[in-house]
């Protein structure tokens, strides 16, 4: 709501906000994230509780989509097995750019309790797709889901949209100095 608060203190004439287009676009993007829910195991039950009356995930502007093509981010909740891994990769590749990944729970972060002898468990979903936000816990509490969502919004808010390459080059040359 940061943008709207600035309207309370208008310039002469009122209703004027000075800012970068990028900020407005990012603000819109971060507050309306549609997601593809990839419910796999126990964490998906906590995610159901998250979606239900007490915690109400939709107030973050997130709407569940059943098709990867309409989704902005994918939520991997649960243990990723080898049989499932290829499907996750296919669905991830079908999503439109820009796309983000939230990995929920120890299992999809690193294999969780199944890291040692789990012959059929992939030890972390980041071995097949890039992950933006990791939510720890086995399973994470709904509060942790909220924290993860805020983290993702923050990340989107700070992203560059225009002249990405030019800026990236400049940053790199600054770093080299």
């Amino acid at each position, binding site marked *: 709501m940061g943008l709207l608060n600035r309207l309370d203190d208008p310039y002469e004439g009122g209703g004027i906000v000075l800012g970068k287009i990028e900020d407005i676009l990012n603000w819109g993007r971060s507050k309306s994230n549609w997601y593809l829910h990839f419910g796999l195991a126990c964490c998906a039950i906590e995610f159901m509780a998250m979606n239900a009356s007490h915690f109400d995930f939709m107030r973050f502007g997130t709407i569940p989509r059943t098709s990867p093509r309409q989704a902005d981010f994918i939520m991997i909740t649960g243990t990723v097995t*080898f*049989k499932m891994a290829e499907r996750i990769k296919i669905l991830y590749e079908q999503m439109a750019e820009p796309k983000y990944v939230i990995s929920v729970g120890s299992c999809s972060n690193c*294999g969780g309790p199944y890291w040692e002898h789990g*012959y*059929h468990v*992939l*030890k972390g979903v980041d071995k*097949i797709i890039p992950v933006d936000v990791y939510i720890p816990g086995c399973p994470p509490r709904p509060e942790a889901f909220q924290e993860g969502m805020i983290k993702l919004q923050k990340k989107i808010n700070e992203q560059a949209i225009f002249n990405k390459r030019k800026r990236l080059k400049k940053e790199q040359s600054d770093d080299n100095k």
Partner: protein
Amino acid sequence: MLTNEIFEKLKSEFGENILECNDQQPVDHFIVVKSEKLFEICHTLRDDDDFLFDYLMSLSGMDLNENLGVVYHLYSMKLKHKLVLKVMVPKTDPKTPSVERIWRTADWHEREAYDLMGIEFTGHHNLIRILCPYDWEGHPLRKDYQTPESYHGMKTSS
């Protein structure tokens, strides 16, 4: 009926196909039978008026180091008695008759035992893997199983 009574009755019918009856505490009592006549024995157990085991609770594959074993846990809904039946099969040629046509639930249980233990149930209509992927190698629950390095290019170890 108690396990030793069932044992006596089966012994009189099937003779030396019934190997032994273990009724020592604290274990669950069980009967060991030969695998050759297993289908007939199970058929009797289900249909004989004294047994009426119409409910197969569980079917488990076992790795007993030199042998493989299959354990059947039976229950009768009408007479409310239980029975544990065991079959041993050699590891070199792990074959035993399928009881899928007697208890329909055995279908998936046998597929699971085949998948994880590598026990082949002859006469099963569709004996394919059920839990592991269809192109998985080896039978994971065997004691000497070595986890493969990778599956479809994904590393299995962390």
